[in-house]
């Protein structure tokens, strides 16, 4: 269980006084983090336009404030930012002068470890993760996709964009309004492919692919083709893949034939000279693999995936194609009960290393996504040579800020019933930190009757939310179909949209209007301060706390400089707990488990691993234990607060033990590993200072070192070899309270 002091008190006290503070029983139920946004004395929820009287005004006895010591909060802040332990010099400097922390935060912010951790934070804060490749189904119209690097890149693009905006000294509001995203040529091609594939609201698929002469083809077919070696008997074999230049050349016989490095195969029943199937003694068909060289596709999505190394299962059958998949004609005299003997199997999706792709295609750079000017030619999705040199792409579907990336859409699929309402709501949650709710309703009366006609009934419990949502979500309907392709239905394109939320009203004619409405909203800066509060404390800050408001003002006054926000918040008592705040009075201090993102980053950085410890786990049991029992920072549909588990459970304890054991295996007595069991004293010293974060001048250092040394000796005495004894000692340090907690 998380140690949240005031929450524990609240739980017990509220039992005694429940009648006096009963909830209203209305639709305005408290959110999951009820204590974080509890109504003030006048019943208003902080930050929603009401006024609240500061609590702890001296009317009643105060719960004594317990300041957190610098020996605890300096390591907390450094671990949050870098995943590294604080040094004695750093702790001493803050003990001498608490304001010294601000300069440290400033310096830590620009380190690569901090940028990596911020990147992870942004990918969650902008809701770009928590998806699998199959969540792109609506956009690609293909299921059973393979795990191409593309899908990871799609999830990273927005966080890299945010980091780039910060590094360039631009206002953080650009993350909402920007048309320029960090992209690879692969991602650029993806955006183009999504634009050149068309799926309307009814699910009807078509294509609109630019040709060399500037025209748009709606009938172009595509192939994935293996071209055999010129000399099939040469050893070693010399591959002969179709070069991309031929694929792109309309005059070439290989136009729109994407290269495959190997033939495809089907398991076919063997036929005799009369065309009848040959059977074995058991009466089963005798089968053999039959190779073929190409698959034919009619969709842009399949062609795009083929370009990058995946021949989807959506290929067509063309009996006239001698290079296509084999077919079987069942002789007319085969009885019905024997026809199943003629069944054959061709693998569906086939992943391969694409000969057309180069190392250039995974290089990140800023790319502007814009709509075409009059008469401007579009770039076909397969034109990688052009994309490798381009810093902009031209598409017909608008892409603005975090809320229109393919990854955001993959998170929030919509349909004919939902009609982009969840897309809108999640965009609001990210942008202004608030979800649509029945109380903060808009003033519009324009409601569609949708599929669920009950929504437009004013007596329906759904009505007030839809009153707010429907005019706003029209901005998505204007631009996108339900599968997030370009909207061409005039009824939607020319529909009316307006922003009307929490007192802010403006008509919406485009995504740019929507983006501007978000960044001009009074809740925009506080939403991001609050997100960082959650990140740092695993709980909310009070939005009426004067210290919170000071940080919001500093962020706003700096023209939304995120570096300033981090400096002001992470050196604030809101995060350090070194001084009393309204947030402490209302919500107390939370000591949280180190969730997966934090714990993995800390071990990776402290053990100087070159790749993330948790992303590279090769042991299946450890992988499962970590993935399923060590909670990630996350987000939920409709939830304003991030999903942050703080509780210690036996399952978390078991998962951390598995991960620590795995890390021990990587770092002890391995070639060039950090620790050597023949130098166990040095290793244990490092365990204490580096893994546990207890500096040599810490009053606990000697005792802790002694306990670990005794553990090593006891392990050897029990029969363990020095390597295993040191591993066990490492696991102990790795599982120790200061290693697995945030804020201890």
């Amino acid at each position: 269980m998380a140690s949240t002091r005031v929450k524990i008190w609240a739980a017990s006290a509220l039992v005694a006084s429940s009648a006096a503070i009963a909830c209203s029983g209305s639709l305005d139920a408290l959110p999951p983090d009820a204590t974080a946004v509890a109504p003030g004395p006048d019943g208003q929820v902080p930050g929603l336009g009401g006024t609240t009287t500061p609590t702890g005004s001296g009317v009643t006895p105060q719960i004594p404030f317990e300041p957190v010591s610098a020996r605890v909060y300096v390591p907390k802040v450094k671990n949050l930012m870098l995943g590294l332990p604080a040094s004695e010099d750093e702790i001493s400097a803050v003990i001498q002068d608490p304001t010294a922390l601000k300069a440290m935060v400033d310096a830590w912010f620009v380190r690569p470890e901090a940028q990596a951790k911020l990147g992870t934070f942004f990918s969650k804060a902008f809701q770009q993760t928590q998806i699998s490749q199959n969540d792109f189904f609506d956009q690609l119209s293909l299921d059973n996709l393979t795990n191409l690097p593309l899908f990871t890149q799609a999830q990273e693009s927005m966080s890299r964009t945010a980091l780039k905006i910060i590094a360039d000294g631009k206002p953080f509001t650009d993350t909402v309004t920007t048309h320029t995203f960090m992209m690879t040529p692969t991602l650029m091609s993806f955006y183009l492919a999504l634009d050149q594939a068309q799926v309307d609201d009814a699910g009807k698929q078509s294509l609109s692919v630019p040709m060399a002469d500037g025209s748009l083809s709606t009938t172009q077919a595509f192939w994935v083709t293996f071209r055999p070696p010129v000399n099939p008997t040469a050893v070693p074999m010399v591959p002969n893949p179709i070069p991309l230049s031929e694929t792109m050349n309309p005059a070439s016989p290989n136009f729109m034939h994407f290269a495959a490095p190997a033939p495809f195969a089907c398991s076919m029943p063997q036929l005799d000279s009369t065309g009848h199937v040959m059977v074995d003694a058991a009466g089963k068909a005798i089968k053999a693999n039959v190779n073929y060289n190409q698959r034919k596709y009619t969709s842009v999505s399949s062609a795009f995936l083929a370009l990058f190394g995946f021949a989807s299962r959506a290929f067509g059958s063309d009996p006239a194609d001698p290079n296509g998949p084999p077919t079987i004609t069942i002789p007319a005299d085969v009885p019905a009960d024997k026809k199943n003997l003629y069944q054959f199997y061709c693998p569906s999706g086939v992943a391969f290393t694409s000969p057309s792709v180069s190392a250039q295609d995974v290089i990140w750079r800023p790319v502007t996504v814009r709509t075409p000017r009059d008469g401007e030619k579009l770039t076909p999705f397969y034109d990688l040579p052009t994309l490798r040199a381009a810093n902009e792409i031209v598409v017909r579907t608008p892409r603005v800020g975090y809320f229109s990336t393919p990854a955001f859409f993959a998170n929030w699929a919509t349909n004919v019933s939902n009609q982009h309402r969840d897309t809108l709501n999640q965009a609001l949650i990210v942008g202004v930190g608030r979800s649509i709710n029945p109380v903060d309703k808009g003033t519009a009366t324009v409601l569609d009757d949708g599929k669920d006609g009950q929504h437009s009934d004013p007596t329906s419990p759904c009505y007030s939310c839809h009153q707010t949502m429907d005019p706003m979500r029209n901005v998505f309907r204007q631009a996108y179909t339900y599968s997030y392709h370009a909207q061409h239905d005039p009824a939607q394109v020319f529909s009316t949209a307006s922003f009307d939320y929490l007192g802010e009203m403006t008509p919406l004619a485009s995504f740019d209007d929507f983006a501007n409405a978000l960044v001009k909203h009074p809740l925009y800066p506080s939403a991001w301060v609050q997100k960082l509060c959650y990140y740092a404390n695993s709980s909310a800050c009070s939005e009426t706390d004067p210290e919170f408001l000071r940080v919001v003002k500093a962020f706003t006054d700096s023209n939304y400089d995120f570096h300033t926000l981090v400096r002001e918040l992470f050196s604030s008592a809101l995060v350090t707990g070194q001084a009393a705040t309204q947030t402490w009075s209302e919500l107390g201090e939370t000591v949280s488990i180190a969730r997966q993102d934090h714990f993995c980053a800390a071990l990776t950085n402290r053990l100087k691993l070159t790749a993330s410890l948790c992303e590279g786990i090769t042991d299946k049991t450890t992988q499962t234990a970590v993935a399923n029992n060590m909670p990630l920072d996350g987000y939920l549909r409709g939830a304003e607060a991030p999903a942050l588990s703080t509780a210690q459970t036996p399952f978390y304890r078991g998962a951390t033990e598995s991960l620590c054991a795995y890390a021990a295996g990587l770092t002890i007595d391995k070639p060039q590993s950090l620790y050597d069991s023949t130098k166990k004293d040095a290793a244990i010293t490092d365990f204490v200072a580096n893994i546990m974060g207890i500096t040599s001048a810490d009053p606990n250092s000697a005792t802790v070192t002694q306990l670990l040394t005794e553990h090593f000796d006891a392990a050897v005495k029990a029969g363990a070899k020095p390597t295993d004894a040191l591993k066990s000692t490492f696991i102990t340090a790795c599982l120790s309270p200061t290693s697995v907690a945030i804020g201890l």
Partner: protein
Amino acid sequence: MRLPNRRQLLQASLVGAGLVGLRAMATGLPVSFLLDPKSARAQDPCSAGAQFLILSMSASGDALNCNAPGTYDLPSTFAAGTVNHSDPADMTMTATPLTLGGKPWTAAKPWSTLPQNILDRSVFFHHSTGTANHGELGRVLQLFGALRRGQWLPSYFAKTLRPCFSTIQAQPVTIGGEQLSFEGQYLPKLTPTGLKAVLSGPKDLAAQLQTLRDDTLNKLNATLKQNRAQTTAERAYLDNMALSQVDLRTMIGQVAADLATITSDDATNQVIAAALLIKMNVAPVVTIHLPFSGDNHSDNSFNNEALQTNASVNNIKNLMTKLTAYGLQDKVTFATLNVFGRTFADLNGRGHNASHAVSVMIGKGFKGGVVGGIVPGGHAATIDSATGQALESGDVPPITSLASVAKTLGRGIGLTDAQLSDQITSGLAIPSVLA
């Protein structure tokens, strides 16, 4: 007069009433007990046959409501074609008679395959959740504010029942993929294979080393608690950390053999894991997810709905078999509560139905029966609380029927009317289906 705010009430309760809040913290006894031990004992849920709860939840909004008893044999006021059941050609969902509480009903075939002794303690409760939004499962579980202080129903039940069973933790365990909150904190979403991965202990020398590590960690905890932790929260964290280690070792000792039967994270394995967690006395409430259609906007002839309904009813049977094998058949209640039901009028897929859903409750605390029903349009009917029947002049309108589900389920798992009415501000329990 200016009303005191929440903070002031809290402070007054903690330090004003004989420091009862602090005493509760120190002793672990409920404040209600410290304030009035006699009264608290009178409300002890354990004396009324308290039950563990395995709750299936779905944010998909499943079509369980479309094939349940109470939606067949409808009067002529229902126009033809407005209530469509799943009834594929393979006859796996064909309308089939069954007996509940001694009365004949009709339902999709899978329900009729439950053994009669299970049907005799099965309730099908027709109600309305009032939402058609997938994202509002949390609000449904909060009964849209009818459950005080934003508590989530499974968490409220778990917290209330924990003293009866002295479970390892008060928090529910969620292994079905849906999110749950306990006292303002989201709970981790666990999986059957994840449980298996952490509950498989080492052997031989590795086990010896683990014991040594546990011992060293206890000493480290004690050292840091004495010399580093300066705040209540820091000390509490260290205490909880030590406790979680003890709990883990206890659990590992109990389940080694049964864990081997877990092979994946599907509903079948969720059922195994849920039964195991109860057997291990981990938590009073375990949540799983048994699908009865999923979000089936497109579902040709309701084939998928049929497959999932058959599989989930089979899993309910499997659960009952498992509980019987563990001797827990009279100590565990199974129930379902989904974000919403689905619409009746479509043919090849179903929309969201805010105004009708069905909750199934199976346990010793129940008599077989159907509560409520549907009215034309596919909405939940008003219920007469005395009989449980659909009645236009009844006293449980659809808007409070969700709270009635909660109160009836609460009664079935051993809570008293007084306890439930103290926390749930609307709705009525339906005594006619309580054993």
